[in-house]
């Protein structure tokens, strides 16, 4: 399992993040992002995942996060900055990580080893 810090994520472009995540997940790692992905990055990750699916090798990802928080302020609007706050996210191979339960406050997952 790899826990990736907010500092590292903030220094990376969207495509670098997606490549890093998919590379690790395809090797069987589970990735925890201290700061998650933006909605646009999440949808790009799903799109890239679809292109990487191979019938007998890689069936996709399990990804779990909470809805982003939108904290746009008047100053942010003037400066053209997004007020979206991304949140901790866990991503893993679909055949190894399974969400058991998820609600407003907690995500419970089951990890299979050696599948």
């Amino acid at each position, binding site marked *: 399992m790899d826990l990736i810090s907010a500092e590292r994520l903030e220094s990376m472009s969207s495509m670098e993040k997606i490549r890093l995540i998919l590379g690790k997940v395809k090797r069987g790692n589970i990735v925890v992002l201290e700061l998650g992905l933006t909605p646009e990055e999440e949808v790009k990750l799903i799109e890239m995942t679809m292109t990487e*699916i191979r019938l007998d090798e890689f069936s996709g990802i399990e990804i779990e996060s909470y809805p982003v928080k939108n904290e746009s302020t008047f100053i942010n609007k003037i400066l053209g900055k*997004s007020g979206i706050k991304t949140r901790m996210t866990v991503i893993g191979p679909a055949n190894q990580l399974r969400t058991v339960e998820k609600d*407003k406050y907690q995500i419970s997952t089951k990890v299979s080893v050696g599948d």
Partner: protein
Amino acid sequence: MSVIRSLKMNFAVWIKWIFGKKRARIGIYGPPNAGKTTLANRIVRDWSGMETGGISHIPHETRRALRTDGVVINANGSTVELDIVDTPGMATKIDFREFMAYGLEEEEAKRRAKEATEGVIEAIKWLEDLDGILLVMDSTEDPYTQVNVTVVGNMEARKLPLLIVANKMDLPRAAPSRIKAAFPQHPLVTISALEGSNIDDLYVAIARHFG
């Protein structure tokens, strides 16, 4: 190039303002088997007498986006003309073995899986070309799926209108209150697309939000 595109967009807004034309292109989104095509068929049949696509209990039955233009909805004194895009089910994983559990032969299951991955990409691409979304959720399922979270997040980031449709209210385990609790910031209409229950409430909400 972006300046020209911006001018074209401003021109389109002005035309709409001058002539009061209420036309919107909306996408029907959601996870596989939430009832998107059943809903699309219901809307299009009710207002134009046609059908859009086939339905099945096997996930990913719709693997190509199906577009129906010029569906005029009159509800509660408002009229809106919609171009409706019924999109393939969004998913983060597709395993052909899951289709075999529904009785499909291996070759057929693999073909469906391949087409389903392309369908998800197509659904994502359509996000760029829409004026709003009907996000269809299965009221009997957990609403906190990543597909729901991601679609809601994208609509909020793009500042586009979103109407949540809590479908399958005809089933005993339906609990639309869970969906409302998960996404309280968005309007929600509870329906059964299969039986047509509450469908008039949905048309009123569509006319209000997309008109």
